[in-house]
Structure formats: structure tokens, C-alpha cells
């Protein structure tokens, strides 16, 4: 149907272009014909009058000459109005246009058109856009689910948070008193529930206490693991609310700047030494930014890791200490921190007190950590506490696989302690 309409449109357009061209030449010949007809009539009249004798011979001859002169003039005028080249143009332009326009359209279509392209109906789009429409998350549905869960476990913090969230969705994003109650109940069960904190912060922002909201959200941000799915939204909300309240924008998570594509390509063209230099200058840039903005815990962690990888163990240990002051570290990070410390130790020397402090925390978090056992043993040994040293080293010996290269050294040490 559409194709037919388009063809019709083309035809009409070509027709509209052709009609005036054909019409002008036709009209011109008509005009000449009608003029000649008049002159012919005049000549016939003059001839009749001469034959009747009403007009003398000489006068009739003069009149005839006059009419003939006009005929010649009219023919000349018609010729002048239709120059030779224009008449050629008129002859060739219409068929040329009639051929060229469809040909041009066909050429454009063959270049641009994709006749084999299948239609993109609603159902075949990626599932991410449209999850199963039968399972749409309407507030009513979420509300019913949360209530059903609460009926079984009235104190389940997840269900309480879910109920609060559903209530907020039902109220078009306004955190209602009922929802606040649910979130507070959830927090009573689980004091760091991120969803409850997020929505209570939203309530604070909605009820005119943006400062409290931003503080709550920033605390939540610092507590959240770096890959938490809610972090991007949380950061956007912090930025939005502090902007709306006219507060100074919170320092965005500085961290490592993500290198652009150009930078990555430039990096790949460097030789290894230059590349190392470039990485080092990026890490130093991060270091400088963190000195201006020392409250960025995630940034310090990233910096510590970067220094550790670059082998700058003293700087890495410093950065871990800075991050540690801002929030508790997990065991993995404690291990990295302790490693940064012990790598600075000369072979055979006991660990210095800062290292011992970190190692002791690591041992507390993970009593069978090989790194902590080995170096704390050495520290105990150096301090003269041989039983403690022996206990740690013997524990470690049991943990080590039979072919561990360090076994020999460890056995030697144990012997020395005994």
C-alpha cells in the first residue's frame, strides 16, 4: 500500500513538472494558428470586395500587401519567441526528466535502502528493555509480595525494607510515614541495611533536612563495597540533593581517573620503561589529589594498591593507614597492607612495630594467616618470647604444603628457637 502511494507521489510530481513544459509550446502554436486564421479571413474579405467592385483595384492591392506584411511579422514573432535551442530543450527535457527522476530515486534506494531488513516488532527487542511484561514490577505486586513475606517472618529486615520501598513506589516516590516505620523496623533488625538508610535519607531530603540526608548517604557510600550496585545511583542522589539545597558539591569519588581511549592507545605505543613512567605519573597525580581531599577512603585504597603493585611498599603502607583511619578494612586489604610492610623488611630482620600492629590485626581477623604467623613469630622471637614464636611457627608448619620452599627455613628457625 505504502509502495503504491510512493509510486503515485512520484508520478504526480513528474507530471507536475512536465505539464507546464508541454503546455507552453502547445499554447504558442495555437496563438499563431488563430492569428493566421484572422489574416486569412481578412484576405478573403479583401478579395470579395475587389470582386464586387466596392474597393478599387489599387486599394485592394495595398490592403493585401498590408495583411501579408502582418502575416510575415506574426510568423517572425512566433519564430523569435521559440528559439531553436529552446525548442530542442523542450523536446528533450520532459522525457529526460521522466527517466532521470525514477533512475535517481532507484540509485539512492539501492545505496541507502535495506529491503531485506526485518521489521523490529516489540517482542523481539533485547529482554533487558522489556522484562517479561507479565512480571512487571508494579507497586501493588511488590507490596503484596513484601506483605506475604512479612506474614511468615514479621522481623525479616529484607522484607521490611522491601515493604517500605513498595510503599514509597506506591506513593509516587514520597517516603510516607508508613514507609518510615517499616524502614526503622528494618534498621532495628539490621542497623546497616543499605536500602533502609537510602530511603530514610530520601525522606530527610524531602522533608527539608538535606544536610542530614547527605551525611547519611555519604556514610552509606563509605560503608558500601566498591562494586555495590546501588553506588552510582547513590552518588547521583547525593549530587542532586546537595545541589538543590545549595550545599557545596561533595567531592566526587576521585580515585583513579579512567583513562580515555586516546590515552590507552598512547600508552600502548610507549616502550615498557616509558609506560612505567606514565603509570607512575598517573598514580602520583592521584596521590596529590588525595592530599587535597583526604576524606576519600576508596581513593586511598586504590592508591595503596597502585603503590603496592609498583613496588613502592612504604608509600603503599602509608596509604593503607590513611584508608584505615576512615573506615574498617577487610581481611584481604589487611593482608595487602601487612604485605606492603613486610616487603620492606631486610631478610632476617624482625618486623618493626608498625608492621607488627598490622600483622596482629591480621592475625586477629584470620588466625591461620601464613604471613601473620611467620612474621609475628619472628617478632616474638626478636622480643625474646620464644614460646609464642614457637607456637606460631609450628602452626604455620602444619599449614604449609609438604613441598613449600619456605619449609626448610622455617624448620631451621624453629630449631634455633628451641
Amino acid at each position: 500500500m505504502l509502495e503504491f502511494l510512493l509510486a503515485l507521489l512520484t508520478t504526480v510530481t513528474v507530471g507536475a513538472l512536465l505539464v507546464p513544459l508541454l503546455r507552453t509550446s502547445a499554447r504558442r502554436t495555437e496563438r499563431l494558428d488563430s492569428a493566421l486564421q484572422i489574416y486569412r479571413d481578412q484576405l478573403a474579405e479583401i478579395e470579395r470586395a475587389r470582386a464586387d467592385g466596392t474597393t478599387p483595384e489599387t486599394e485592394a492591392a495595398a490592403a493585401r500587401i498590408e495583411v501579408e506584411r502582418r502575416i510575415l511579422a506574426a510568423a517572425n514573432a512566433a519564430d523569435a519567441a521559440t528559439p531553436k535551442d529552446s525548442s530542442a530543450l523542450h523536446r528533450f527535457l520532459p522525457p529526460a526528466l521522466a527517466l532521470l527522476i525514477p533512475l535517481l530515486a532507484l540509485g539512492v534506494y539501492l545505496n541507502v535502502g535495506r529491503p531485506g531488513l526485518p521489521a523490529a516488532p516489540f517482542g523481539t527487542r533485547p529482554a533487558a528493555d522489556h522484562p517479561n511484561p507479565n512480571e512487571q514490577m508494579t507497586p501493588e505486586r511488590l507490596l503484596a509480595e513484601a506483605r506475604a513475606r512479612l506474614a511468615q517472618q514479621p522481623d525479616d529486615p529484607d522484607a521490611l525494607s522491601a515493604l517500605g520501598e513498595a510503599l514509597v513506589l506506591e506513593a509516587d516516590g514520597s517516603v510516607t510515614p508508613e514507609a518510615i516505620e517499616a524502614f526503622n523496623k528494618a534498621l532495628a533488625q539490621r542497623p546497616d541495611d543499605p536500602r533502609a538508610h537510602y530511603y530514610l535519607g530520601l525522606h530527610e531530603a524531602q522533608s527539608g533536612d538535606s544536610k542530614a540526608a547527605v551525611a547519611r548517604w555519604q556514610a552509606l557510600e563509605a560503608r558500601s563495597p566498591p562494586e555495590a550496585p546501588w553506588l552510582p545511583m547513590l552518588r547521583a542522589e547525593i549530587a542532586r540533593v546537595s545541589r538543590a539545597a545549595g550545599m557545596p558539591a561533595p567531592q566526587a569519588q576521585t580515585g583513579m581517573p579512567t583513562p580515555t581511549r586516546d590515552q590507552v592507545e598512547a600508552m600502548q605505543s610507549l616502550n615498557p620503561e616509558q609506560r612505567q613512567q606514565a603509570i607512575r605519573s598517573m598514580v602520583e597525580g592521584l596521590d596529590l589529589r588525595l592530599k587535597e581531599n583526604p576524606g576519600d577512603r576508596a581513593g586511598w585504597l586504590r592508591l595503596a594498591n597502585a603503590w603496592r603493585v609498583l613496588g613502592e611498599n612504604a608509600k603503599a603502607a602509608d596509604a593503607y593507614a590513611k584508608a584505615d583511619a576512615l573506615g574498617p578494612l577487610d581481611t584481604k586489604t589487611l593482608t595487602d597492607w601487612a604485605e606492603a610492610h613486610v616487603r620492606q623488611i631486610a631478610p632476617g630482620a624482625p618486623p618493626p612495630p608498625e608492621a607488627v600492629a598490622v600483622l596482629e590485626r591480621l592475625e586477629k581477623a584470620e588466625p591461620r594467616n601464613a604471613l601473620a604467623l611467620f612474621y609475628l613469630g619472628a617478632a616474638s622471637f626478636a622480643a625474646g618470647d620464644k614460646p609464642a614464636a614457637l607456637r606460631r611457627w609450628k602452626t604455620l608448619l602444619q599449614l604449609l604444603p609438604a613441598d613449600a620452599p619456605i619449609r626448610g627455613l622455617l624448620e631451621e628457625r624453629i630449631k634455633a628457637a628451641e
Partner: protein
Amino acid sequence: MNRRLLFLLPLATLALMAGFFAWSLLAGRDPASIGSVLVGRPAPRLEVKALRDDEPPLTDALLRTGKPTIVNFFASWCTPCLAEHPLFTRLATRDGAVIVGVAWKNKPPEARAWLKRLGDPYKFAGADLDGRTGLDWGLSGVPETYLVDGQGIVRRHFRGPITERDVNETILPFLKGAK
């Protein structure tokens, strides 16, 4: 010659309009602000039926109690009202403000359901179904909020939703100062 001048007329009109628009854009005035004639004058008559069941209708006496009052026109169908609603809840619960709410061109059952869901910060609530009282008060739409002092004089008129800044910089000082 005269006819040619006539052809310049559309061009001159265009230039005149462009000049006016440029001035409007650049003069730094707020085109949304249409001012209010009520500020500094006694509040218009308040005579509406109660929104909630079994309550007496609202009268002018509510505005001349000697205590400052906030008069808020709202509707359940209005989204900005949803945004400013938690601020009124906070003013009522935390700051003890007396708030008169008038549901404007809003069916009472719908307004009541809305308040039930979001919480009801209004000490007195009226229903102005046909918008007649809104007309008296010079309402241009909802939400609009008036600060009325203890003598019934309108001190401030907010057109549009109130914000956290309005609460902190205007409403709270007003409540404190007028007491």
C-alpha cells in the same frame, strides 16, 4: 516610495519583537513570577466545607487567632504538591506550625485518600471543590501557600511548591518572629 516603506513594516515588527524577547531574557527578571496583590493586606474570606467528615466548616476566625498560620492550597492530582508535602509534615510535627489545607478542585474522597497515604499535616482541612475560594485568594493553580500572621494579614505568598530553602529562610523565621 510609500509602498516600499510599507514593505518594511513586517521587518520592523520582527525587530521590535526580537528586541522585546531579548530584553525579557537578559533583564534577569523571573518570568514565572507574577507577584501577588495580597501581600500586606488582610487575607480574603475563607469559607469552605471541611474536607474530613464530622468537622465544622472552615471560617475566617481560624486566621485571626493571634498565631501565625500557613494556608496551603493543594490537590491530590498535583505532582508538585506531592513534592512539597513532606515539608508540611515536617513543619507540623517538628515545628508545631498551624497549617490550613484546602483541597482545590479536588474530589474530597480522593483528597482524603491522598492524605491518608502520605500523612495529614493539616490542622484544619477544607474542600474547595468548585475553586470559588481559590478565586478569592488569587490562586493561579496549585500548590500555592500563604503565610498569614496572627492578625489575618497575608505576609507572604508562594506560587508553586515550597522548597527546603523557603522553609529555612522564610517560613521558620516567620513562625518564630510572628509568635
